[in-house]
């Protein structure tokens, strides 16, 4: 820290105080963002990739204010939902939200006519057309609006479902889309809790989730709730063979299919790729009009950083992976907020622009005057030099004509045709379908794709066509087989023998077919379904298959577990049973049963380990001896580690002897350490002497020695103090061992430890990192800070060490004002300015940031301060425990950044609340809560990239409050430094980082 001013002076003198033009940056997104809100000004802000042209399609002039979603109808009219009542209706006011229809009657590529289809709506966030009307998500309800007298306005309103949560009005049900089989998908966000009464029971989804609604059956199913696949899903789409994807409102993109297993069990779905910063919606480019290079790419609405993003999605075993390409469009206007992207009937890319300097919900006051309620735009991006598509006539066409459109290369045409076919009377559709299939030529390249599309028409009518399904299940195209597997799942309650149909597919040569078959099997609630599902293990597994198989085991648990208990289930291979009971150990399984399963040949190490662990939990001394006596167990560090996490089990002298094999110096350090952990956790005192000799033996790996010392503390208590003090006191002791001894002393006696810590601090003049290591054992202990403070009152610390200690405290994220004050005094730092929050101060500083802020100087301050990158990522570098700062300036104004930096407890970003736990042994762990179950809590700490998983049984207390970011990080900085740092941060994401 002391180096900063020097460094800055140096660099600045090198650069000279050149005032570089910083471009058109308005640092305030919560006051008038753009002085010129005209269409022309916004057009000027666009930077388009080569080969494209952008024009206005519609704006506020046609009544588009605060648009949030758009959908096409078969006539090429664009329906737009506008929600000026958002974010919160004022008391006593009538809601003014609307569904407006835009039409380009003269075909010049601009909407010229608009009328209101439905008025007086209350903050609806999404809709889709279908069944001759509109499905609309409006607060707690999914409603169906219809214009029965054909005057262009809705005149009936039917509530289809109710009970969706409204706890946060930007996360209510949204992003409606038809699946290829005529299912309506939509999603909800992180603060939403829904309870919906259906004929199958109450369907529940807590926090973010994806919903699937089968309208004719009135069947609603939730998936991936508990925010297990993004906290705010917004935008879904289906690939050419029905592969489902969804986009988080956050950076991540997901391949949804593994998560379409219905079970209350929750697990985080791995994403397949991500943007740099937030963006929503997926449009998959499938039109001849747009450049060939763009075909198949995912286009995403980058509402946060004012871009139209582009991702390329490629196969990755049973799933996909995605990478970010250069954007199609970037804008310098902070009000350009693309929130929906759709290819239109002409093949152009239409962009719905919320046009608002304030995008978000929580970041700004609900009544902030700059929430724009009057603008809204729809932009049309075309490819220069490529002909537009002429959409066919779809409205009013007979079934046969619509069916022919299923062969179209244009996805827009197929989507509309299927939607129309789904709403035609079945009596009309049914004969035509058979007829049309009969006329298809099997030699045509897209023959199977046509079959897939027409199978979707059957599905949308809930009309089972087993013959067609079987044909597709034997298709040449893997996509055809995958889709057939999916439909077999959907129709499983109506097929004579769905499992027989799925059997060959679950062992298909193509991994994606296997995955779809697995998901399908999960809907057949019979014991044999589990037998079949387990056969996917016969071929290589990957993260998507593993995810789906685990979920399937839970989904089918009520079917297979009783069957297993009564011996009415026979797996094809012993390894299948072994896998199943390794994932869900039956509560009634006996030690003998585990031993039998463990004897299965060719078990994977994971399965074997999990079974041995389950056996250990049954807890008989003989079983523990059996486990520890296994040669494979004696070299399995992961097993020993996991055993150490169980409650202490009875260890016979014989078992203890077996364990000593793992303590031999000939074993790897990992095995030694794991065995030490086990001895320590289960308090196996007979191993204490072995461990003591390991810990004091110079040639042994230092990590092993360090762990050995910790175990001795546990086993011997204060009796270990003389040894520890001897080690700490000797300069010959390697540092790692000293630190371990320090940790031990800290656990036993903080006062003694304080003296040793200060001596260690005096030795740690090299770097903040070394200093952090020196203070951590004591600081992370109950009353440790107090003891250190007391010691520092007696013992002085050289200035450099005191400065490093301050830095170390900051990087640890510790709020310890008294200790900081003492260290500051020792360091003889500048006057400490503890800034008090006041709106006037923020205003004054914001003004200074805007007028005099120097971003270059700010960047140097940022770079020289190790506490920022310790937690925050910036352009791919730095920690991940805090929010990514790469485009913070796009999302937050300088006023807000000031508040965030100086008083981090004021507004805590979703998911960044600090959690602090204290274990029963007095260790303090703080970080971000990643995941929590009834038994464990996963905490992401600054110390490690991996989450720390803590058993709740070991906890003495758990508090969640405030931000992890310490207050007072800027206390030692001058006003000018703070000003420049804020300036730097507020420009992040606005243009290329200052080099």
């Amino acid at each position, binding site marked *: 820290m002391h180096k900063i001013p020097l460094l800055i002076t140096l660099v600045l003198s090198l650069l000279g105080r050149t005032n570089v033009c910083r471009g058109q940056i308005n640092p305030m997104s919560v006051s008038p963002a753009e002085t010129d809100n005209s269409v022309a000004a916004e057009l000027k802000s666009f930077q388009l990739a080569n080969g494209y042209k952008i024009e206005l399609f519609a704006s506020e002039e046609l009544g588009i204010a605060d648009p949030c979603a758009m959908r096409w109808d078969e006539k090429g009219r664009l329906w737009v939902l506008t929600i000026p009542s958002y974010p919160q209706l004022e008391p006593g006011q009538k809601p003014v939200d609307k569904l407006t229809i835009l039409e380009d009657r003269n075909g010049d590529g601009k909407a010229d006519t608009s009328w209101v289809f439905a008025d007086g709506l209350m903050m609806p966030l999404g809709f889709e057309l279908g069944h001759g009307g509109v499905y609309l998500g409006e607060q*707690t309800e999914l409603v169906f609006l219809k214009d029965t007298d054909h005057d262009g306005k809705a005149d009936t309103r039917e509530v289809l479902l109710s009970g969706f949560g409204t706890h946060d009005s930007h996360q209510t049900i949204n992003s409606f889309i038809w699946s290829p089989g005529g299912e309506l998908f939509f999603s909800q966000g992180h603060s939403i809790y829904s309870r919906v009464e259906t*004929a199958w029971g109450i369907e529940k989804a807590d926090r973010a989730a994806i919903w699937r609604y089968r309208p004719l059956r009135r069947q609603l199913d939730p998936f991936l709730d508990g925010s297990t696949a993004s906290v705010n899903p917004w935008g879904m789409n289906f690939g050419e063979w029905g592969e489902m994807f969804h986009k988080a409102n956050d950076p991540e993109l997901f391949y949804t299919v593994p998560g379409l297993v219905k079970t209350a069990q929750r697990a985080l779905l791995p994403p397949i790729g991500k943007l740099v910063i937030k963006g929503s919606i997926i449009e998959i480019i499938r039109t001849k009009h747009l450049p060939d290079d763009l075909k198949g790419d995912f286009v995403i609405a980058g509402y946060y950083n004012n871009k139209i993003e582009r991702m390329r999605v490629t196969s990755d075993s049973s799933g996909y992976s995605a990478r970010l390409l250069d954007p199609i469009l970037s804008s310098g206007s902070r009000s350009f907020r693309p929130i929906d992207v759709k290819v239109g009937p002409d093949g152009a890319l239409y962009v719905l622009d919320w046009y608002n300097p304030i995008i978000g919900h929580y970041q700004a006051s609900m009544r902030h005057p700059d929430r724009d309620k009057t603008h809204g735009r729809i932009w049309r991006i075309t490819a220069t030099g490529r002909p537009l598509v002429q959409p066919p006539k779809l409205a009013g066409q007979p079934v046969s004509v619509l069916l022919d459109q299923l062969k179209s290369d244009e996805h827009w045409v197929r989507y509309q045709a299927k939607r129309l076919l789904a709403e035609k009377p079945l009596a009309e559709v049914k004969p035509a379908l058979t007829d049309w299939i009969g006329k298809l030529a099997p030699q045509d390249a897209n023959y199977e794709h046509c079959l897939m599309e027409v199978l979707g028409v059957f599905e949308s009518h809930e009309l089972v066509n087993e013959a067609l399904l079987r044909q597709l299940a034997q298709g040449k195209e893997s996509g055809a087989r995958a889709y057939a597997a999916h439909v077999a799942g959907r129709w499983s309650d109506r097929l004579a023998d769905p499992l027989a149909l799925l059997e060959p597919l679950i062992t298909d040569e193509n991994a994606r077919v296997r995955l779809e078959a697995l998901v399908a099997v999960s809907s057949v609630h019979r014991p044999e379904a589990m037998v079949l599902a387990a056969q996917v293990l016969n071929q290589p597994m990957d993260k998507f298959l593993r995810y789906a198989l685990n979920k399937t085991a839970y989904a089918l648990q009520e079917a297979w577990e009783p069957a297993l208990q009564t011996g009415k289930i026979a797996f094809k291979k012993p390894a299948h049973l072994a896998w199943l009971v390794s994932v869900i150990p039956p509560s009634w399984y006996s030690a003998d049963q585990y031993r039998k399963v463990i004897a299965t040949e060719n078990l994977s190490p994971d399965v074997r380990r999990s079974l041995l662990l389950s056996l250990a939990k049954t807890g008989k001394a003989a079983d523990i001896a059996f486990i520890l006596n296994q040669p494979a167990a004696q070299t399995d560090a992961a097993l020993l580690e996991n055993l150490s996490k169980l409650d202490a089990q009875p260890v016979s002298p014989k078992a203890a002897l077996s364990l000593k094999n793992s303590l031999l110096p000939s074993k790897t350090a990992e095995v030694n350490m794991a065995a030490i952990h086990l001895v320590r956790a289960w308090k196996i005192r007979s191993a204490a002497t072995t461990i003591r000799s390991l810990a004091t033996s110079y040639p042994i790996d230092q990590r092993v020695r360090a762990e050995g010392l910790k175990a001795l503390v546990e086993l011997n208590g204060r009796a270990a103090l003389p040894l520890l003090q001897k080690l700490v006191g000797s300069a010959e002791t390697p540092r790692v061992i000293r630190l371990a001894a320090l940790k031990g002393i800290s656990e036993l006696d903080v006062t003694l430890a304080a003296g040793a810590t200060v001596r260690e601090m005096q030795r740690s003049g090299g770097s903040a990192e070394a200093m952090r290591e020196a203070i951590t054992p004591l600081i992370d202990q109950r009353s440790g800070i107090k003891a250190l403070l007391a010691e520092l009152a007696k013992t002085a610390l050289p200035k450099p060490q005191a400065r490093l200690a301050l830095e170390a405290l900051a990087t640890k994220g510790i709020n310890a004002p008294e200790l900081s004050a003492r260290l500051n005094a020792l360091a003889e730092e500048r006057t400490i300015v503890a800034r008090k929050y006041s709106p006037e101060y923020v205003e004054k500083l914001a003004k200074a940031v805007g007028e005099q802020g120097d971003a270059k100087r700010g960047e140097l301050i940022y770079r020289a301060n190790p506490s920022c990158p310790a937690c925050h990522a910036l352009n791919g570098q730095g920690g991940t425990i805090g929010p990514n700062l790469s485009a913070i300036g796009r999302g937050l104004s300088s006023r807000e950044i000031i508040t965030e930096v100086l008083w981090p407890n004021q507004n805590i970003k979703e998911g960044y609340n600090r959690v602090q736990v204290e274990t029963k042994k007095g260790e303090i762990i703080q970080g971000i809560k990643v995941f929590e179950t009834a038994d464990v809590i996963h905490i992401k700490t600054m110390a490690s990239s991996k989450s720390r998983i803590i058993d709740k049984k070991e906890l003495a207390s758990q508090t969640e409050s405030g931000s992890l970011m310490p207050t007072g990080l800027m206390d030692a900085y001058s006003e000018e430094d703070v000003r420049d740092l804020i300036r730097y941060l507020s420009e992040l994401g606005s243009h290329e980082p200052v080099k």
Partner: protein
Amino acid sequence: MSSSRSSGNGFYSAARQGLHCIVLFLGISYSVSWAQPRLDKTFFNGKDLSGWSATDRSYWSVKDGAIVGRADQPVAKNRFLWSSVKVANFYLSIDVKLEPDDRNAGIQFRSQKADATGQALGYQADMGRDVWGRLYHEHGRQKLDWSDRGEKAVRRGQWNHYEILAVGDRIWTAINGKLAVAIKDPGGDASGYIALQIHSGEPQTVTYKINRLVHNPNVELAGLTESQLDQQLKLPLDKRQSGLPLKLQSDDVIAFAGGTNIATMRKDGILESLILAAHPTTKLRIWNLGWDGDTVFEQFRDVGFKSWSKNLDSLGTDVAFVQFGQLESLGGVKALPQFVASYKKRLDEIRKTDRRIVLLSPIPFEPARSYRTPEAQSANPLTTAPVEQYAEEIRKLAESEGYGFIDLFHPLQASPSFGSLTTDGMHLNPDGQRLVAALIMKALQSPREFSTELVPLQKEVLTKNVLWFNYWRPSNWAFLNGDRITQPFSHDWKDKDRRIFPEEMKAFEPLIREAEQRIRDEQSKLAPVR
């Protein structure tokens, strides 16, 4: 008959208190007033019967400072001498002598006159052979506490010292210093009058020597402290409370609770309009607390949203219509015992002195309406759900626990429109709502059906209901009072310490009051012209 509930709040403050509590959680101010004990000097003057009345005064006289009830001939009907002093929380000390000693008499308290002949309805501290020291509920629920420990303390044919202590829903009596009755009777009579009895039968003389009546007494009796007395409490043998028909009084707060079918009532206001129209001159406040997916097992509410029972409390609910069992019935017969136990528990949470609770049965499912086309028919559990058994168990629960019960299941099933009363096989459509409303009105003995005459009233009801919903269950709860209240969203954009969202929500309160006033204006237009 005056309202037994403290109505000093008046509409304005009561409504405000109720609404307030739901959103701002000031807690419930239902605590018993902490008034000091007050000796009633007007109760009996020791000289004559001023302040007392009876349909036939010839039985009653005052002699040697005591009230004497004397019958020289056999008595056809029970005879009562009524005091004009109303009691709620009180202590009464009397010495009493029965001649001959095998006759029967008693002291009514917190009672009402049941009819013109002066018969009593309410608690009676009983005396006489085989009934000494027992608690009877005259003309009503009958035996409440029937233990014989009072009897054991009696000195037959001599003076016996009888004490009665009633505080809130707790009632104790003692004979000759020994505890006799100790019951907790939530939902029982909270206040009323004292009357002295001569039982029907052979000639007798009863002498009541009144020592003292104390209002708001200290809780101590028979040498026992309050906590010792509390330890003795049990629920009464007969837990029934005032059943149907309900007598709705001015200022009554009526709440509806249940799942989607209840929640949907707020959107058509039919039942509400009918209830208001049936009581055109009575000021009623009606709140719909229906919440989609509520069952006896779970009433999901977000962080900061008080529980289901607390919501009923904070509104000051006097009458609660509760409907559960619809979705629960999908769990089948095997889940029935668990359902009944949970339902009982839920109701125990809201059981309160003077709160009337009416259970509505679930409606029969219409499985054929659960899918839109024949092809979409599925094996959903509506066909097999044992709704009728659930309805029957709810009826039994209501009977044994003393709640009102309205059967919607059988009348709906028998209706010619059955099969077209729901939108989706489980949720009532407007026809279904109208039919259910009519059935409930019939059970309340105010038969009435919806007619165009009620449309202006219904319009105001709907306006109020929209305001109520947006106030009670507003969007953005997470920011208003949930887990995101520290975010800038609910704060002023300049003064970040000021939370404008809760302030803004307060603006609903006058709007709701105005809407209620308009309801009353429409309601009064329906009053019969004199």
